[in-house]
């Protein structure tokens, strides 16, 4: 036999070598080959090969595959060691620990607050058990290609839904708008808002009854009241069967007591439910006239879909049912599900088109970013500190740590820190929640006992820890032992690149937030600076909510008020100065385009309205008692004049079917009635005494508001003895128009401040490390004659560069977002270039301030101290 024949099949060796643990390979292969030699001497090559194959296969088992255990310390010992080292590091570098833990805690608090806020927003109306089945019937009307969607509908529409489409709807209920009612029990009077509703509505809302039943409104003389209202009216007495006098015109009996609706319910404000039939029998409210009138839309319609019906299918069925009955234009019905009421409150072409959901997204993104900023700080500080810990890594590796152990060590360290931060964050959260609730206008509670709350919080903390620790863990553990221990570790340009990227990210986010916040404020200020068209100071509105107020002769009341000396003038109008409730569509004039359906807001006012309000007549004249013909006249605003396209509107006739013509006596300057962000509505002010709903009083500027009110209160008490003197200030009502935007701006400011704070905190830490790292260089430079200023320049240069890059990225990003945000406002500010410059300069100044503390300290240090030791 030749020598070659004694070589066993190679591929089997190759196969086994893949499989076999390296420390066993020598003996295993030796054994196999020796035996092969023995066998090949005894038998044929084929037989030997076959047996060799069997032998090889017989080795394929777990105990061969299993790699040699590395020196494995007992797990708990090692963990204790990690913990000790982590704590020692924290205590030794107090500044960095504070920056790390504090920064992370701030980031966590922000994320938690935003999380709670989002949760609250998303859970709106979920209190109602029929949440998924309830919808409001929205009415979209299209004129001149422009659609307006309203929540008010006509009575026959509700009746048709109830009768013809009964197989789709469990309940259909007509509900009046929310009004403030004066409730009187004996001498006690309380003003609370409530609705007149058909009997099914409380059942639909699933009110949690404490006493009585939800169906009680079947008896028109009943009322359902909230627990808090019952306490206010009856104290601890059993309210059932008690009589309440409503607005001094009707008496109702308490037939049910329900748990107060939570703040995140659409019906939070509604404290009492009154019977629809009672309203009809007491004051009518136009219900009888509207029974068959499809164009009389003045009531809210709510439906509850049958179990298992699909809202879209039903919506398609009922979409056009109103169309055949209406006189003009197009009408479409939209079933607007309860789940969308709060977050999707804007409509476009009769479809839901966003709304508050935008803010949910906006804050969600901000929350993620703020948390990210905090994590970036953590990463940056850890990697910057890596040089200090490089020796530790080297020694650990030299005495047998494998990479996975080091990764484990650093990850557990960062998870530990994130847990410390969590404890701090929960404390912060507990302290800050009341303030946050105030600013955000919420009633958020932390459900400390809820398992899901803790699951989310803990999961989130571990995730933060892992996220924040991942980069340092993988980076630090990759150091080469020998290089590190020799001290030859050169952290080159590449190593600092990620850190630079992270700093740039941080500042991009911060600068974007600064610019965005400034623009939000600018927009609010822009709208606030918009000329209102009248003087809001000392203007008081009184809602005529009792028959006594209606019945008091106008001139008598006016003279009584003027007699007090506290009132400059008084007038009445159909609507408050800050809202429109009636829109005329049938007005025509000479030369009107017949296809145009003009939408004109209309107010019924008295002679003294202009004087009381202080409007400015641009053309023509104000209403005057000297001209008896004024009874049939009208004053329009500039927007209306523009809409009508009349060169000289004064003296023109406006006609409306079924009504006498009205002559335009004057044109007033535009006034803001609805939203200050929208174009001014074209308006008609008709001289009409009998449609008044509000009394408007201009207080005399010579007296303080308090004094003036004290003087006029007796007048109202006398004419309206059954009720409290209840009034609102027009300037306050007007300020309400800004509350949503202001709330957003306030929240945005807080988050922006925090994100800048976090970014600076990180920068502060980084700067101190840089200074420390270059301490020898600084010493040498100083010895060679460098000035403190030039050293400061040297150390600051890098950071200034990073912030500048961040600024360049932030400008287009923030421009894009602010611009698209502004698009939703008709009346909007333009984005000024100085905002960008100011934000950039501001960010740069803050950066320099932050790092100068460290760089100046390093630059002014005595070089002997740093150079003495080597």
């Amino acid at each position, binding site marked *: 036999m030749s020598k070659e024949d004694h070589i066993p099949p190679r591929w089997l060796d190759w196969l086994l070598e893949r499989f076999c643990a390296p420390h066993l390979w020598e003996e295993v*292969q030796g054994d196999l080959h*020796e035996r092969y030699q023995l066998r090949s001497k005894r038998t044929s090559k084929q037989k030997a090969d076959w047996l060799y194959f069997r032998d090889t296969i017989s080795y394929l*088992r777990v105990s061969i595959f299993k790699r040699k255990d590395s020196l494995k310390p007992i797990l708990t010992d090692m963990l204790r060691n990690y913990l000790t080292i982590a704590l020692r590091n924290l205590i030794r570098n107090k500044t960095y620990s504070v920056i790390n833990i504090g920064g992370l805690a701030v980031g966590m608090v922000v994320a938690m607050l935003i999380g709670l806020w989002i949760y609250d927003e998303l859970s709106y109306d979920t209190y109602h058990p029929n949440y998924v089945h309830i919808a409001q019937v929205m009415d979209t009307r299209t004129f001149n290609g422009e659609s307006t969607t309203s929540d008010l509908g006509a009575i026959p529409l509700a009746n048709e839904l109830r009768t013809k489409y009964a197989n789709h709807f469990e309940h259909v209920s007509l509900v009046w708008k929310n009004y403030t009612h004066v409730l009187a029990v004996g001498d006690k009077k309380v003003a609370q808002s409530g609705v007149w509703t058909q009997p099914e509505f409380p059942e639909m809302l699933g009110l949690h009854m404490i006493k009585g039943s939800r169906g009680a409104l079947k008896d028109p003389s009943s009322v359902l009241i909230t627990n808090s209202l019952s306490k206010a009216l009856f104290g601890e007495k059993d309210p059932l069967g008690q009589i309440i006098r409503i607005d001094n015109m009707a008496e109702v009996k308490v037939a049910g007591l329900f748990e107060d609706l939570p703040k995140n319910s659409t019906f939070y404000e509604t404290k009492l439910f009154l019977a629809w039939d009672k309203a009809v029998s007491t004051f009518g409210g136009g219900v009888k006239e509207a029974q068959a009138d499809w164009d009389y839309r003045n009531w809210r319609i709510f439906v509850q879909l049958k179990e298992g019906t699909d809202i879209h299918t039903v919506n398609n069925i009922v979409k056009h049912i109103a169309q055949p009955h209406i006189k003009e234009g197009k009408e479409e019905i939209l079933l607007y599900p309860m789940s969308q009421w709060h977050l999707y409150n804007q409509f476009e072409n009769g479809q839901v088109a966003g709304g508050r959901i935008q803010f949910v997204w906006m804050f969600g993104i901000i929350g993620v970013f703020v948390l990210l900023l905090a994590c970036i700080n953590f990463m940056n500080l850890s990697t910057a500190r890596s040089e200090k810990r490089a020796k530790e890594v080297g020694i650990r590796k030299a005495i047998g740590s494998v990479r996975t152990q080091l990764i484990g060590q650093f990850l557990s360290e960062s998870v530990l820190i994130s847990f410390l931060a969590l404890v701090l964050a929960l404390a912060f959260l507990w302290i800050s929640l009341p303030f946050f609730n105030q600013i955000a206008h919420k009633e958020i509670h932390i459900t400390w006992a809820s398992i899901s709350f803790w699951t989310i919080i803990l999961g989130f903390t571990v995730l933060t820890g892992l996220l924040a620790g991942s980069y340092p863990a993988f980076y630090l553990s990759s150091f080469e032992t020998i290089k590190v221990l020799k001290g030859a570790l050169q952290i080159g340009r590449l190593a600092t690149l990620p850190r630079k990227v992270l700093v740039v990210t941080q500042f991009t986010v911060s600068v974007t937030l600064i610019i965005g916040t400034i623009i939000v404020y600018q927009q609010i200020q822009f709208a606030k600076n918009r000329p209102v068209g009248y003087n809001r100071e000392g203007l008081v509105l009184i809602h005529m909510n009792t028959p006594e107020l209606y019945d008091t002769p106008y001139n008598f009341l006016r003279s009584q008020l003027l007699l007090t000396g506290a009132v400059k003038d008084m007038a009445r109008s159909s609507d408050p100065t800050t809202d429109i409730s009636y829109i005329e569509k049938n007005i025509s004039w000479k030369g009107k385009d017949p296809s145009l359906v003009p939408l004109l807001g209309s107010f019924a006012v008295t002679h003294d309205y202009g004087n009381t309000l202080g409007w400015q007549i641009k053309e023509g004249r104000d209403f005057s008692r000297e001209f008896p013909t004024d009874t049939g006249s009208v004053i329009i605003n500039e927007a209306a004049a523009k809409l009508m396209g009349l060169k000289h509107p004064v003296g023109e006739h406006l006609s409306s079917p079924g009504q006498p013509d009205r002559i335009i006596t004057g044109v007033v300057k535009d006034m803001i009635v609805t939203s200050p962000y929208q174009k001014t509505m074209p308006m008609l002010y008709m001289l009409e005494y009998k449609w008044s709903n509000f009394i408007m009083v201009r207080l005399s500027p010579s007296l303080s508001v308090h004094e003036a009110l004290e003087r006029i209160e007796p007048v109202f008490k006398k004419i309206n003895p059954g009720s409290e003197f209840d009034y609102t200030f027009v300037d306050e009502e007007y300020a309400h128009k800004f509350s949503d935007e202001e709330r957003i701006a306030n929240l945005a400011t807080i988050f922006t401040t925090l994100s800048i704070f976090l970014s600076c905190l990180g920068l502060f830490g980084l700067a101190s490390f840089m200074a420390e790292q270059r301490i020898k260089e600084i010493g040498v430079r100083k010895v060679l004659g460098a000035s403190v200023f030039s050293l400061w320049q040297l150390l600051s240069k890098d950071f200034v560069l990073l912030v500048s890059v961040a600024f360049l990225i932030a400008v287009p990003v923030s421009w894009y977002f602010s611009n698209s945000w502004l698009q939703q406002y008709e009346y909007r500010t333009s984005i000024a270039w100085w905002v960008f410059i100011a934000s950039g300069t501001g960010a740069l100044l803050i950066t320099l301030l932050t790092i100068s503390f460290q760089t100046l300290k390093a630059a002014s240090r005595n070089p002997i101290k740093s150079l003495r030791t080597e």
Partner: protein
Amino acid sequence: MRRSDLGEFEEIVLLTVAVLTPNAYSVVIAEELEAQTGHTVTTGAVHAALQRLEDKGLVNSQMGEATAERGGRRKRLFTVTVAGSRVLHEVQAVRDRLWQRILPNALPKIDLA
């Protein structure tokens, strides 16, 4: 973990180690067993048994010298430990006691030629 109990194959491998000491390693043990039993015994099976015996503390091992047939690789030589010795003796004692208690004619006669 009670790993003192011995499998039949382990017992016979352990015994063979004792027989072949000081030159007991996988190949010779396998060859010996093949010669004694007449069945093919793979090196892998012997190796596995030796690993298990070592885990149980019944044998010790150290690396021996390299030989040419092994392509210059060293072999792992096994010796029976005190514990191994005790186990072997126990097993033998149990068997002996049992054999002695077998009554004459209790086993069917077979031709042992």
